[in-house]
């Protein structure tokens, strides 16, 4: 119960436009939940609503059954990184974390530990304005980890990180979830999400498009298919079509079947007595699955920057 993030009918309207539209979700401890959606889909707004920074037009966002504002010393329950650049340019990372620690009664040694964890103990005394975006991200992650919270939220945490940094963030998310924490992370990098998330929430125009385990979303893609290699491709194609399986002939002796599990394709071939040389599943990438899911709700076309 402790670390559950639960949204019920959460909505946020600016003028006559719903940025978040009737969103209901339950995010559970022990999993990394990836939060996906096109630019302007309402991901950042949703996170701000959960953190009590913005007021919802209707609905509720609760963490462990309570609204954020009612949590005493909230940094010890919820750690969040929304915008790595949201720092006073003249303050050092160390002073920034020290102030956050004081505000929530977190022991000072946690500042050093968090800086150590994100690998920026050496740059902790530098003024924030002199930090690279990658370093700011690390500092923001340190701030989120400061209170050893059971719930963690990150908005685009790998922005500006180098490949080592990206891999480090991936490992960090996985280990935080393995420790039983609730990890909610938004990202644009599908390949990264595919490696990091267990569970996905996809929204578009503020509405929930799909919420499901990563594996289920990939399996559901039309691009996830069964590839069969056989010297009797034409016979098998006819057989599969007759059984209602969509099939395409990809090469002289290769077929691609969609809309049927690999077991069914194998069984149908066996029943027809057709010899197979290869039978395998070709999984869609998360990127492909995501493209299909959001094809109808892309708010802004190419060339627009994330808000």
């Amino acid at each position, binding site marked *: 119960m402790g670390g559950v993030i639960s949204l019920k009918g959460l909505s946020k309207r600016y003028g006559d436009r719903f940025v978040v539209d009737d969103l209901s979700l339950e995010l559970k401890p022990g999993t990394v939940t990836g939060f996906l959606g096109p630019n302007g889909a309402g991901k950042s707004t949703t996170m*701000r609503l959960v*953190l009590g*920074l913005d007021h919802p037009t209707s609905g509720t966002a609760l963490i462990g059954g309570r609204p954020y504002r009612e949590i005493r010393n909230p940094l010890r329950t919820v750690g969040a990184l929304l915008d790595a650049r*949201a720092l*006073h340019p003249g303050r050092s990372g160390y002073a920034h974390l020290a*102030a*956050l620690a004081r*505000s929530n009664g977190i022991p000072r040694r946690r500042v050093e530990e968090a800086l150590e964890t994100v690998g920026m103990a050496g740059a902790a005394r530098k003024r924030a304005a002199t930090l690279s975006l990658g370093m700011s991200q690390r500092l923001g992650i340190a701030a989120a980890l400061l209170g050893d919270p059971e719930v963690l939220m990150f908005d685009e945490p790998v922005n500006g990180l180098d490949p080592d940094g990206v891999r480090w963030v991936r490992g960090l998310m996985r280990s935080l979830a393995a420790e039983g924490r609730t990890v909610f992370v938004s990202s644009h990098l599908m390949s990264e999400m595919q490696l990091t998330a267990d569970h996905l929430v996809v929204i578009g125009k503020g509405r929930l498009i799909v919420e499901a385990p990563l594996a289920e979303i990939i399996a559901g893609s039309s691009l996830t298919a069964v590839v069969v290699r056989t010297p009797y491709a034409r016979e098998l194609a006819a057989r599969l079509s007759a059984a209602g399986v969509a099939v395409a002939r990809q090469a002289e002796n290769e077929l691609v079947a969609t809309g049927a599990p690999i077991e069914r394709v194998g069984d149908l071939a066996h029943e027809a007595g057709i010899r197979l040389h290869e039978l395998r599943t070709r999984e869609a990438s998360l990127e492909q699955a995501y493209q299909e899911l959001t094809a109808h709700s892309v708010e802004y076309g190419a060339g627009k920057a994330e808000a």
Partner: protein
Amino acid sequence: MSILWQAVSAEWGKLWSVRSTWWCLAGATALMMLSALTLGGATATEALRGEGAPSPVVASEPVVSATSFAQFALVALAMLTITSEYASGAVRVTLQAIPVRGVMLAAKALVVVPAMAAAGVLSGAVATAAVYLLLSADLFGGLVVLPPGEVVADLLAVGVFFALVSVMTVGVGTAMRSAAGTLTVVFMLLMGLPLLLLMTGSQAALDASLRMPLFAGLAFMGSTDNLTGGPIPYSAGEGLAWLLAWTAAALVAGHAVLRRRDA
């Protein structure tokens, strides 16, 4: 430890961890000294030119008048404690740590009180010493006195005045969010509007002008020589009451905006 105390402690650490704080304090001290020396020199010169035996200048009296100018360096400092957070977006981090809006505002307001009171007393003391040294010179006929009781009372009053003006600025800054807007509103309250009203010449406008923070502050600090041409026609206690009222109004406005608007 109470939530408010934790928040105050955090804000206190933030205040002293940026260079701009020291620049503003240095600026305030320099402005206090320059304005007090100019005003003190002018008062002494005038006294020398007058008829009969010239009465000596209390060294802290020009310092009280100098607050009208030096206050803006501290207004800038008080303003930055809130507007710099809105400019960078860091206010969202602050509100994540201190989600109860009133506690966040109270912490910011409480932090500037001791800082600005001390800044007022110290910069006032430096300026008083400078005025005393200048007017002790033969050029000004040594027309200066340093009565300890009066000087201490003046310096403490300057400290209280700066503290209240700074809290007022925090309130306005929270309501306005931007540095430009805050500076405009605070300048109009502390200087623009009272002078404008003073110039209209009507009695009602004059009465209103005298109740604004500029003259309420001077009344509270016991100024005898200012733009109205004489002492403010009400007591120091009433001056303090008006100052407190303006400060409270600014805080209420700041809190209302802070609660209602998205961060």
